[in-house]
């Protein structure tokens, strides 16, 4: 069950971050696109969390230490390039993961098969923007490179085994997943005339920290905002 929680929390938290962009995007088309991606992810989160329990109890009444999302997805939006770097890293990973889960025939196969179509679009959106920002102007190139660098250290966690996912019949091979991810991201980054970051790929704690409920500081504030109203009216329905 913790696998559904891990995947559900990834989608929930990234959806929330993308929701913060509403009305702030560089062009109207991006207001539409980012909201669209956020909605897809929220839809996935609701299905996954419902496998575990009540979606609202899980979203609104757990504290920071009980969330199992990757540290990558909780990172603040930063500028548009930071948001796109986060989207590139995560959506390539999620696309490859869901493709494998869909093919693996395990517990998440049906869900992954549905979500993979959405995620393919998210991935394309991120890759197209990495190309435009990387190979756009000097400023956008520099900002895109900075975004890739800043978030690089959170990418290692994606390839740590998840209890209930890697140890069952999902047929998931994390090493193969990581190789494929790295090749795909490298390809996009190079086409965008950017440089793949070289630093360590571990979070503030160690790879796997978010999955153990060890998060970064901005996450607590995000949850405070997300949960405030729900927690202010115990037992109410909305």
């Amino acid at each position: 069950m913790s696998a559904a929680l891990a995947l559900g929390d990834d989608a929930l938290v990234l959806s929330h971050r993308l929701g913060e962009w509403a009305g702030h995007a560089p062009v109207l088309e991006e207001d539409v696109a980012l909201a669209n991606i956020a909605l897809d992810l929220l839809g996935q989160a609701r299905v996954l969390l419902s496998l575990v329990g009540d979606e609202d109890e899980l979203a609104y009444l757990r504290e920071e230490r009980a969330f199992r999302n990757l540290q990558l997805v909780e990172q603040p939006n930063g500028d548009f390039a930071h948001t796109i770097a986060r989207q590139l890293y995560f959506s390539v990973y999620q696309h490859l993961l869901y493709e494998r889960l869909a093919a693996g025939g395990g517990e998440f196969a049906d869900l992954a098969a549905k979500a993979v179509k959405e995620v393919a679009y998210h991935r394309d959106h991120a890759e197209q923007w990495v190309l435009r920002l990387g190979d756009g102007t000097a400023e956008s190139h520099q900002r895109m490179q900075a975004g890739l660098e800043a978030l690089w250290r959170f990418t290692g966690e994606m390839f740590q085994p998840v209890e209930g996912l890697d140890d069952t019949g999902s047929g998931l091979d994390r090493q193969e997943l990581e190789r494929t991810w790295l090749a795909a991201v490298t390809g996009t980054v190079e086409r965008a005339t950017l440089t793949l970051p070289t630093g360590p790929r571990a979070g503030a704690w160690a790879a796997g920290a978010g999955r153990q409920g060890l998060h970064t500081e901005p996450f607590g504030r995000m949850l405070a905002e997300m949960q405030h109203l729900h927690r202010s009216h115990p037992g109410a329905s909305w």
Partner: protein
Amino acid sequence: MAAVTADQKTQSTSGTAKATGTVAGTAGDPADAARLAAFDAAVAADDRIEPRDWMPEAYRATLVRQMAQHAHSEIIGMQPEANWITRAPSLRRKAILMAKVQDEAGHGLYLYSAAETLGTSREELLDKLHAGRQRYSSIFNYPTLTWADVGAIGWLVDGAAITNQVPLCRCSYGPYARAMVRICKEESFHQRQGYELLLALSRGTEAQHAMAQDAVDRWWWPSLMMFGPPDDASSHSEQSMAWKIKRHSNDELRQRFVDICVPQAEALGLTLPDSDIRWNEERGQHDFGAIDWTEFQEVLKGNGPCNEQRITQRRKAHEEGAWVRDAAAAYAAKHTTPPVQQTQHAQQAPHVEETA
């Protein structure tokens, strides 16, 4: 087609649908007189005016102004609701709200596209919005202070917008009328969702009920103001009605809205903040109290609670996004070879087509 520069500051009131025409003026050119006669005949016959048709400059200018104002209202209108996305109290409500704000961006896009058929551009219109030379609906200068405001906006603000906009589906200008057909479908859906949100609160805990009532108390009068000034003070309406851009007067639409809302409020178990509302047997309509037009004028002048905040956020998003738009343009310039050059390239070095 001549570029339209409808720069004059409008006295128009509600960007959501209100029209204020300038008086049609045509010079003494006999060819123009013939074209004007054809135009008038087309309008009289309820034909649609299309982008390539001749139209009086004042008709064009009025439409650009009204459609721009309408588009601006959609995108400024994202702000008061987006204000609650990150705090929505359930995942279902959060999804509904995100979808709604996304729809509003989409409506903005339709309307800018429709306005562009009149010879202006989205960039030009946005520049005017940011410079304060074009307006958006006064309603969006009110703050969303509680979650219930999201419901009140759906029920009352979208309800008023729909009352205004449904007649626009028959507007004489084809592209605008067609945009409105699509927009009204989605707006009706949002309005029902807002109503349903308020109903859940009204039937919820005491605190939730109080939250819903407070929101209705704060949004009722501003919603009535969305229909614009009273008919005797709305000097430009006559021309817009003659051109069939507008189909009903401000007061007619406002009355229609009140008549719709009274039973809905009862069904919601909420009261409207107007002790003068009562059924008038003789008129077959509801009487209602006097609107505070001073407040309305103040909001229009920029002195509403959120005028400054709304336009500042809008400008900030635009300015902070400039480098992204520049990047997209630079990338497109690098990777899109003009057709003629492409042929030359193909002849010289076919292998450079990697970016096609």
